[in-house]
């Protein structure tokens, strides 16, 4: 149906968006690649020439690298585990008949709309502070010594904060998926005498598989680059320096741009591996 005329018009309509994103992607990316092969210290001599893969080697052999990979994996893994497990349970619960379902939904979703700096600061000061925080009051009430959350259990604390932020996202998506489940199938299972757990494992869970995959992939991409939550709580100390935070410190704090850029390239590769899986699912849905 589309004529030659409408084709070229369509191309023209797409052009601005494509052009902007192309520039936005290619220019900084090229610069990062460029810097990553240079010894570049803006505050200490500037551009000191090409160094080949030196920065790439130094980034992974520095003493900060493996701990940062570990911190990243623990935080991302922990948050994924908590949000998916609790999210599935919560979605199952919210799918049940109850009074005031709409209000409960609103309560559960609220954390997603709280800006990261607010949630990090509120948790850090008003809940996790070892003197005046609510958790300290609570542990004193039970006769326990208050925990210094962010220095004694720093990774767990950050995982907790970030999980609180992302639980609504997981829950909402899983709930949406759950609501598209064919009720008759469940009822048939029930009539055949399948116990609730079997119905969940054989009917509900397979139905949720795609939604869970999507939650995991999208959250991974966002979680790999959490920043504000660390920036306002521990500033990367106590072993909470994630890969993102390490690169940030190399680039802006110690102004070792070459080294930081090499780290950036690693981060981009890592994110792209995850993105590849996500795109495959999204692409498949596009055809449907």
């Amino acid at each position: 149906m589309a004529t030659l005329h409408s084709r070229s018009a369509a191309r023209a309509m797409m052009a601005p968006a494509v052009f902007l994103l192309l520039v936005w992607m290619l220019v900084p990316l090229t610069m990062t690649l460029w810097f990553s092969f240079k010894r570049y210290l803006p505050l200490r001599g500037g551009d000191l020439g090409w160094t080949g893969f030196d920065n790439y080697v130094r980034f992974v052999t520095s003493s900060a690298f493996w701990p940062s990979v570990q911190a990243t994996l623990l935080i991302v893994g922990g948050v994924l585990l908590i949000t998916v497990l609790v999210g599935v349970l919560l979605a199952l619960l919210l799918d049940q008949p109850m009074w005031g379902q709409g209000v409960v939904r609103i309560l559960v979703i609220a954390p997603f709309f709280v800006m990261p700096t607010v949630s990090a600061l509120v948790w850090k000061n008003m809940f996790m502070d070892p003197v005046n925080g609510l958790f300290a009051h609570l542990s004193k009430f039970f006769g326990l010594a208050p925990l210094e959350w962010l220095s004694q259990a720093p990774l767990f604390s950050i995982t907790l904060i970030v999980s609180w932020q992302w639980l609504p996202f997981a829950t909402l998506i899983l709930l949406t998926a759950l609501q598209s489940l064919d009720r008759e199938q469940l009822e048939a299972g029930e009539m055949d005498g399948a116990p609730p757990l079997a119905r969940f494992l054989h009917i509900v869970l397979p139905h949720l598989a795609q939604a869970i995959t999507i939650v995991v992939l999208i959250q991974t991409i966002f979680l790999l680059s959490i920043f504000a939550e660390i920036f306002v709580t521990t500033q990367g100390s106590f072993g909470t320096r994630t890969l993102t935070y390490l690169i940030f410190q190399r680039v802006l704090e110690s102004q070792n741009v070459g080294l930081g850029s090499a780290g950036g390239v690693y981060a981009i590769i890592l994110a792209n591996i995850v993105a590849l899986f996500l795109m495959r699912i999204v692409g498949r849905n596009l055809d449907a």
Partner: protein
Amino acid sequence: MARAVTHQRKTLNTAIAWGIGLLIFFPVLWTILTSFKTEAQAIADPPVFFFFDWTLENYAVVQERSDYMRYLLNSVIIAGVSTVLGIVVAVPAAWSMAFVPSRRTKDILLWMLSTKMLPAVGVLYPIYLIFIELELLDTRTGLVIVMMLINLPIIVWMLYTYFREIPGEILEAARMDGASLREEILYVLTPMAVPGIASTLLLNFILAWNEAFWTLNLTAAKAGPLTAFIASYSSPEGLFYAKLSAASTMAIAPILILGWFSQKQLVRGLTFGAVK
């Protein structure tokens, strides 16, 4: 309904769900409550919940001392202008992809999505450098541009999924009736596209409002939005809970309200149409 739900079961569901809902919401509730307390009541042990001397003093102090209004204005301008600009660029693109799809449409859509996956920290220094060169550091213009670009893929995607739901037959009918392309767009398509555009606007406004990587790294006192304003409470002001709470409440209240309207769009917008 084949299955009768017992009254008892429903009551139990309700109790558990409300309990968990309130637990998850509690940090937000606690922040709002604390913002109306005095500093002494805010750190009282045992904590006071509702029975304290409600005061608005913290809000007055925060406004006065930290120039809240300027940060608020920055947030509104950065999130608002970037979203509107993004929509202006994205509508024609999403439009043509939805109504005149070609073999490459899918690839272009997926490629756009892939730019969203680029970790910000990987291009932090280049952007920083460009901002210095173009004197955009700590300006609203700079932030508007960055925010527009990082949200553009989501905007295009959301609009695309909405536009695709508009039946093509209606267009053909309009054409048969002799409508010109301009009339077709103005009188037939636009009214049907408005709800989708509004939803897209809403969700992306929220995302831009809460963005906290670029705003923290590219702004200071002049163009900083509310995310940066709150980060400045990190210490030592953060230890004044009542004031921290008042500042936080003012930063999140507008978005909490908007957010409640956008639950449905959230799923569509952030899963790129993969979950409906």
